[in-house]
């Protein structure tokens, strides 16, 4: 049996390992344009700042491919022939034949829609090649932890719009490292790019279109705390700024960001306005995509083509509210990878996403969420508590009718599995507040949260 997996991110690698665990002799090929090794994309910001080395963000030891008997193909997949069952590759590689195929090609950053978005000195912060670009702009190169091995093994002149292409570096043309970076887009990638620029000793501009930071997850009060913390660290936070153009100097290097509220000098611009499924290369194939560009899959992650499955950021899966869209999270990609592995083995597991949950770290403020928050449901009310003193935290419990439906917590650690259980048990607000510390996951010696009830 020939298993081919496009993408060696968490979904692809999880599926490959699931297959190998059960079938020691099957031929497993992993195709990756981006990297020789599986790495944790969520950790790119720390490689940039120098908190981790490139090697540190690889969850497996470097002999994993050899040990697990995976064939590594470092190339860009350009299409799939579902009749002759072959994956075509760029760069003069022979097509690869499959019996069962998994597409786990992930996301790509959404390009800036403004004039000047492709200027030198404008980039993203999603792929290894983005990291390389941003490091060259700000630090002049990788930290002493080093970069990835064989960074240019996939280099292919025809890869015009690949998210894994190397960008020209404005700092190298100018002969001077970036001094005034700007980050556009008030979400997680944006705040990461900002935080690591601060760690590099800079005071970045942070342009946010909305009224407050990350409105999809936070309310005004919560976001205010994050914005204050950013400002304390020297970030210039610009709310309600609609970017209109990126200006360039005579040499084609970016020189300023122009918004509806003014012009801001900048010599390096990170565009962090979201990601889209990395599926453009499937446009000419018979595999069905949905209107968002996600690969349409059924409950078993099967695509419209026989023996072709999709998992991770590129797949449009069914959400708890019945809609179908990609789910761009690390652990859902991992779960989907496991289901896909089961399908590649010939089983019929289904992917079922339970209650929503997530977490993040915004500067130094930890964030946990579970359930329906910021959905503006009917008959919804919020219970909000701000703790000040030895520990600073906010607690927001969303209630619909007489039971809790969501939690949004900043500053403390919570066990989301307990919060989810309470949501599923339709507990009342009173009950939840009386038992809140049963869900606490703070480290030892942190005093428990004392909720003051009005």
């Amino acid at each position, binding site marked *: 049996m020939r298993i081919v997996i496009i993408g060696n991110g*968490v979904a692809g690698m999880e599926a490959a390992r699931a297959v190998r665990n059960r079938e020691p002799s099957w031929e497993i090929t992993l195709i990756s344009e981006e990297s020789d090794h599986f790495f*944790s994309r*969520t*950790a790119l910001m*720390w490689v940039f*700042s*120098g*908190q*981790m*080395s490139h090697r*540190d*963000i*690889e*969850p497996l*030891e470097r002999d994993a491919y050899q040990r697990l008997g995976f064939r590594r193909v470092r190339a860009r997949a350009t299409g799939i022939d579902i009749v002759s069952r072959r994956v075509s590759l760029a760069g003069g590689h022979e097509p690869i034949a499959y019996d069962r195929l998994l597409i786990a090609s992930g996301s790509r950053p959404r390009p800036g829609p403004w004039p000047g978005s492709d200027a030198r000195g404008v980039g993203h912060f999603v792929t290894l090649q983005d990291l390389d670009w941003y490091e060259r702009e700000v*630090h002049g190169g990788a*930290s*002493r*932890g080093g970069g990835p091995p064989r960074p240019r093994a996939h280099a292919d002149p025809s890869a015009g719009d690949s998210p894994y292409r190397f960008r020209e570096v404005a700092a190298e043309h100018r002969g001077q490292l970036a001094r005034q970076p700007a980050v556009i887009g008030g979400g997680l990638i944006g705040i990461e790019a900002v*935080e*690591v620029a601060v*760690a*590099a000793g800079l005071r970045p501009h942070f342009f946010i279109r909305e009224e407050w930071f990350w409105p999809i997850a936070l309310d005004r009060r919560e976001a205010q705390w994050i914005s204050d*913390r950013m400002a*304390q*660290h020297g970030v210039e936070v610009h709310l309600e700024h609609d970017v209109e153009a990126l200006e360039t100097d005579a040499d084609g290097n970016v020189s300023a960001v122009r918004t509806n509220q003014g012009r801001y000098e900048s010599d390096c611009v990170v565009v962090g306005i979201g990601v889209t499924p990395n599926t453009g290369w499937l446009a000419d194939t018979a595999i069905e995509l949905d209107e968002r560009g996600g690969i349409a899959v059924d409950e078993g992650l099967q695509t419209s083509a026989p023996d072709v499955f999709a998992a991770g950021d590129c797949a449009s899966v069914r959400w708890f509210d019945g809609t179908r869209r990609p789910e761009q999270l*690390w*652990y859902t990609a*991992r*779960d989907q990878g496991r289901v896909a592995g089961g399908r590649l083995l010939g089983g019929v597991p289904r992917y079922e996403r339970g209650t929503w*949950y997530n*977490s*993040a*770290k915004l*500067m*130094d403020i*930890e964030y*946990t969420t579970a359930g329906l928050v910021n959905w503006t449901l009917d008959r919804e009310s919020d219970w909000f508590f701000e703790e000040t003193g030895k520990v600073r935290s906010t607690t927001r419990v969303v209630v619909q009718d007489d039971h809790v439906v969501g939690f949004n917590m900043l500053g403390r*650690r*919570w*066990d*989301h*599995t307990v919060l989810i259980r309470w949501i599923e048990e339709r507990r009342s607000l009173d009950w939840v507040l009386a038992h809140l510390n049963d869900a606490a*996951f*703070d*480290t*030892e*010696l*942190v005093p428990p949260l004392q909720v003051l009830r009005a």
Partner: protein
Amino acid sequence: MDQQGQDGLLTTYREGWRNRSVVGLAISALLVSFYVVLYWEHKVQQHFGVAPLTAISEAAGLRNRWYLYGFLYSIAMIMGGIYYLKRHGNSRYNRFRITVNVAIQIALGFTLPFIMPLFGGQELYFSYFWPLKYDYLYPQTLVDLPLYFALYTVVGSLLAAPVLAVLYGKRWYCSWVCGCGGLANTFGDPWRHLTSKSTKSWRFEQVSIHLVLAIAIATTFLIGLDWWIGGDHPAFHRIVAGDHWQDWSIKSFYGFAVGAILAGVIGVGLYPVFGPRVWCRNFCPMAAVLGLVQKLGRYRIKVKPDMCISCGNCSTYCEMGIDVRSYAQTNESFTRASCVGCGMCAHMCPRGVLKLESVTRKRRSTP
């Protein structure tokens, strides 16, 4: 101090001296040289005619070079403790732990042993136990010690230390009390990311640390035997307990190989090369005993399920070289013998996945 209490953490790999640059290696060479002179000053004196550390000690009124060492050791822990708090001080566990550890070194590791002889007593170290302080269970030592301290050290080494490790894990000692661990966590903190996480290094550690433990027990046993029968068997006595380096008795060999080379020259001298817990992880017999006990006790690192993003901050900053991430990403709460409970993995985790805890197996909410 940085608002986040993590000054210099984000930029760890961008500082050469912390990443085996020429400066880093020079610091290592300096530390190694210091320990060589400290342990073998008589040889230095033979060759060069000076005993530098003794001269400095006497000039400073510190009686002998071991008090100078204790003084420098305390200074290194205080300065390193400040550095540590700048990097990791936004965690209460870290703040409490490092403060207690430094205070114990100052009080029990330096001040008390320095003061006791002034009042006609022996210099006694209340913060060290057998088998780390290996001579405290030698029969002759016990006879010579004041009775209360002999009781303290026997009960402490054989009963209290293991019992506390059952209740709280080995961290009560290795991360809150021990001077070696304290120096590693403070002065050695700049290099904590350098500890190897490879499977190979884990295998090495498993063999080496238990080998040293076996040698420590055998040495103590032979020296005990020598105390009973050595008088009648002079050859046995000379092999086991001859007192000078040159004689190469078992006793002096243990002091040379384990006490001086492994704990001092390599254990501290190579901080900037292999990370700060080389001694604790690979060689310390006390850590070996407490680690075995820890496996049976209440202590563990609890993993919050399905929240790990495999970033690797936990593994990177584990000074004992445990690949914490491999447990976190498989939702596996765990106890590793080598874990000293410094709490850094839990602190570093950006998703709050990890938590140190000491609870009875019955009260654990998740398996």
